[in-house]
């Protein structure tokens, strides 16, 4: 009898709080979105599962000496995991389209407007008493608009670790929702004839240019914005390994075994921040809302910038590729391509949109560096 009581009191059912039950549901929802809807599955499967594990009552796995908590401390509190992922993303990134058309960097800049607008909005809503975010938290939330998972996790880990779970979930969810969120905004801000614009074919880019670009970017970051140096430094390092052609075995491992292993543990560790106490807050709702706004503003400002450039430029620029400036590589570029094809069945914008797309990665890392510099 004693024993049965002991077992019962040790059981999860006995200890489960309503909040934990809700969070297990949230974890299952993320898994559903990842597996059935194919929303950013690499991250949402791992975050979702980690979220479930961290809400199992009466077991130390996401807390204390538990594995997920240790992984969180080793990998995210130090910034190591997002930096390593960024190195891997660098090793997977092709700067060719950007080098063929460097002006697209402006689109990657414009799309970061969402980040700063949201920062201001979050501070404004705090002043208005709607939410209660500190400057650092507002900055971390704004970065969601960068549509770049590792950057968002890196900044949140530095500036607002308590919001990390919600910010990561928002960032990856909205990246997955790019095909739903962006097209209406893109269509609203462009005319049919603008969407039909065909762009001239990109020139070939030499291997030397590809090798020099990450070094150039690194030096510019080093000289002008050192606070962005960890993120962009690792990104450039990965890209240099890929392009230099003499360390292919390192580049291969970075793009495969290394980034995969880190993705698994990053996802689980982020999931370990989805505890009921931390996630079931009104702030989470605010983060989701503001993140969506950041995303929409970024898309809009990218498109508007492309419209402006199209007017000023000698060569035609299809405004749709401006939306790809939010990054969300390569989804946003594909969306630009698809919307372009709807208006003009012979208009393949994919390669043209890859320029702003990777420019958006640089842009949001730069924005992240600015946030870190001003708030820490």
């Amino acid at each position, binding site marked *: 009898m004693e024993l049965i009581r002991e077992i019962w009191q040790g059981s999860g059912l006995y200890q489960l709080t309503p909040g934990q039950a809700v969070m297990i549901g949230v974890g299952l929802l993320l898994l559903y979105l990842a597996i059935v809807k194919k929303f950013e599955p690499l991250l949402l499967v791992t975050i979702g599962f980690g979220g479930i594990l961290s809400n199992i009552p009466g077991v130390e796995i996401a807390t204390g000496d538990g594995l997920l908590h240790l992984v969180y401390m080793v990998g995210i509190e130090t910034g190591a995991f997002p930096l390593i992922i960024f190195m891997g993303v660098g090793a997977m990134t092709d700067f060719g389209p*950007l*080098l063929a058309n*460097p*002006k697209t*960097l*402006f689109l*990657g*800049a414009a799309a*970061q*407007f969402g*980040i*700063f*607008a949201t*920062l*201001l909005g979050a501070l404004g809503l705090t002043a208005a008493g709607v939410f209660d975010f500190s400057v650092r938290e507002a900055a971390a939330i704004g970065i969601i608009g960068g549509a770049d998972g590792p950057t968002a996790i890196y900044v949140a880990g530095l500036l607002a670790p308590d919001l990390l779970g919600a910010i990561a979930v928002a960032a990856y969810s909205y990246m997955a929702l790019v095909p739903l969120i962006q097209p209406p905004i893109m269509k609203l801000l462009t005319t049919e004839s603008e969407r039909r614009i065909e762009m001239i074919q990109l020139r*070939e*880019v*030499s*291997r*030397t*240019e590809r090798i*020099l*670009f990450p070094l*150039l*970017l690194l030096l*510019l970051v080093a000289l*002008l*914005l050192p606070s962005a140096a960890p993120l962009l430094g690792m990104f450039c390092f990965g890209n240099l390994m890929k392009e230099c052609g003499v360390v292919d075995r390192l580049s291969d491992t970075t793009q495969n075994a290394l980034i995969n292993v880190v993705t698994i543990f990053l996802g689980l560790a982020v999931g370990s921040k989805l505890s009921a106490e931390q996630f079931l807050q009104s702030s989470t709702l605010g983060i989701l809302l503001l993140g969506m706004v950041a995303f929409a503003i970024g898309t809009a400002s990218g498109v508007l910038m492309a419209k402006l450039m199209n007017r000023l430029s000698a060569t035609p620029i299809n405004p749709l590729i401006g939306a790809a400036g939010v990054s969300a590589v390569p989804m946003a570029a594909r969306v630009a391509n698809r919307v372009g094809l709807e208006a003009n069945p012979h208009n393949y914008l994919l390669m043209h949109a890859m320029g702003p797309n990777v*420019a958006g990665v*640089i*842009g949001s890392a*730069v*924005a992240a560096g*600015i*946030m870190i510099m*001003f708030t820490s």
Partner: protein
Amino acid sequence: MLAGMGTVFVFLTLLVFATSGMSALVRRFEPVADPESAGVSEEEVAAITAAIALHRTRHRKKHSG
């Protein structure tokens, strides 16, 4: 916010100029095309990839536990 966006734009503008300058220099002093685009057919690439994959899988054994 203005300062933030301004810095982003200044930085990326400089990057545009630096990149354009670098590309111009490279194309001036190294005008020859890369020999990369020589005819490696997709089939060859596929076969090589498969061979590597084969090599790896070949040494794979089950892990018992």
